């Protein structure tokens, strides 16, 4: 549905995005993850036809975003980082205006507006002025605006930024409902968000794509070492003994909890096997031993600092 090839955007003396390529399938929700200033917004602005790329191509539904901008614009919904609202208008007036701009025929306009009002749960506020709404409602109006013409592709730039936790949950569940019917590409710099909403993740840093994969694949790739958490009843002398086990890279004592250790070792089941044997043979009193999962947080930090 979305095909980006060797896209580059050069501002006067900054290269905002550098030769990026990726593809998104129909009905997929893809997360664009990266720190601020990584080039997420620039990529989205090119995809939506707001501005042209310096080189490379981007296609949406088979149409080139530059050559066939008009056709592309009919098929996408875009929620920019700052939702494009007119505070002087009521929700209903605004959505009906946007519906006209999105080339919805006159006789279907009312229907389209009421459908999107229901979908984004705006029924209670549709007669109120946008300027008087809370940030969470305004964001929902922004989302409604992007959805009013039932676009094939949705581009959402930081859809949860600046909202309170309750509002964030609401917006996330709204977006999750869209999967299947729409192809969604959303950007964020909040890690849990992508794991919750997106099947695939595109990690971008300083204008370059660092990784494109599913969350599971990414974390598997990254497990160059295992981390084992250990809790012992008799920790005396344990540190020295654990360190001598072949395959263990380092052992750290957890100062917060009595008798807790964090062991970093090679990815090999035998090493963990050996650790447990040493612990039991020396009567250290094994209370707990578990393999620590690599969180996406680590993935992200690693990917954006290492490569």
């Amino acid at each position, binding site marked *: 549905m979305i095909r980006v090839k060797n896209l580059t955007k050069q501002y006067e003396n900054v290269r905002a995005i550098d030769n990026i390529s990726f593809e998104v399938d129909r009905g997929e929700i893809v997360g664009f993850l990266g720190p601020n200033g990584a080039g997420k917004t620039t990529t989205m602005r090119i995809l939506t036809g707001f501005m042209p790329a310096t080189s490379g191509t981007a296609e949406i539904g088979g149409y080139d975003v530059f050559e066939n901008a008009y056709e592309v*614009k009919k098929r996408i919904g*875009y929620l920019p980082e700052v939702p*494009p609202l007119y505070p*002087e208008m009521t929700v209903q007036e605004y959505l009906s205006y946007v519906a006209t701009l*999105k080339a919805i025929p006159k006789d279907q306009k009312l229907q389209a507006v009421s459908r999107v009002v229901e979908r984004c749960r705006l029924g209670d506020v549709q007669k109120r002025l946008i300027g008087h709404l809370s940030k969470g409602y305004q964001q929902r109006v922004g989302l409604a605006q992007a959805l009013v013409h039932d676009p094939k592709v949705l581009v959402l730039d930081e859809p949860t930024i600046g909202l309170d936790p309750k509002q964030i949950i609401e917006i996330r569940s709204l977006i999750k409902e869209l999967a299947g019917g729409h192809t969604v590409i959303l950007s964020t710099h909040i890690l849990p968000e992508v794991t919750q909403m997106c099947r695939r993740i595109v990690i971008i840093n300083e204008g370059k794509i660092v990784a494109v994969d599913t969350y599971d694949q990414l974390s598997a790739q990254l497990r160059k070492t295992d981390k084992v958490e250990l809790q012992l009843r008799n920790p005396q002398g344990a540190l020295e003994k654990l360190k001598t086990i072949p395959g263990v890279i380092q052992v750290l004592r957890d100062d917060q909890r009595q008798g807790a250790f964090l062991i970093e070792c090679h990815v090999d089941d035998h090493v963990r096997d050996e650790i447990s044997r040493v612990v039991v043979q020396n009567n250290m009193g094994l209370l707990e031993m578990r393999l620590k999962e690599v969180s996406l947080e680590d993935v992200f930090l690693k990917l954006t600092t290492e490569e």
Partner: protein
Amino acid sequence: MRNVLAIARKDLKIYFLTPIGYLVITVFVGIMSWMFCAALFEFLKRSQAYMQFGGMAEMNVSSMVMQPVLGNMAVIFLFLVSLMTMRLLAEERKMRTLELLLTSPVYPLEIVLGKFLSALLLFSVMLAVTLIYPLVLMIFGSIDVKQILAGYLGVFLLGASFLSFGLFISALTENQITAGALTFGLFLFFWIISWLSGSSASVGGQLLSYISIIDHLSNFIRGLIDTKDLVYYISFITFGLFLTHQSLESYRWR
């Protein structure tokens, strides 16, 4: 075309959702009515004096009252243009709604025309209210309808030229106050140019008078529709709209 009308309707609505629409109409009509009454009383005083001294010919109401009123109308409007155009594009940029317009299936030209049309419609309303003056004059004698309509056409074209340039300036910045101040300053300058041109008959003076946007109005007010003046105003309007369009396009390339 549908987009042009939708944008025009929305901006016209915003004129009246904010105080600006009411403000410009009130100020414009208030000042113009004051001027009209002043001109009318002056006319009555003079015509009475004229009759006492046994004057025969009836005095021309159209040229004695409507000509100065229409001339002043242009100047008063010059002061109000900046209020009407300053927010049109600057505010869309500031609120990031331009991003919505430029990522919708809407051509930049449609945005420019829609915005221009909204301001032009508001201006037309303001002008339409003043049509009451010639109607009042009909009580005092016959009026020269053609001459007055030509005058109104001139004021309309002049106003449209102001609006098209004001719109362009609004496209240059995202701060409405900056846009307003710049528009006001520029038009004040356009007005003052004509003062200089009046005092010299040299080539330079003629050139200044050609540039001066207000000097082209005088023929219209006297009831003369000259192609030269028509072409001047129409090219002025087109040029302003063209520049607005270019600046919208360039906003995307930046």
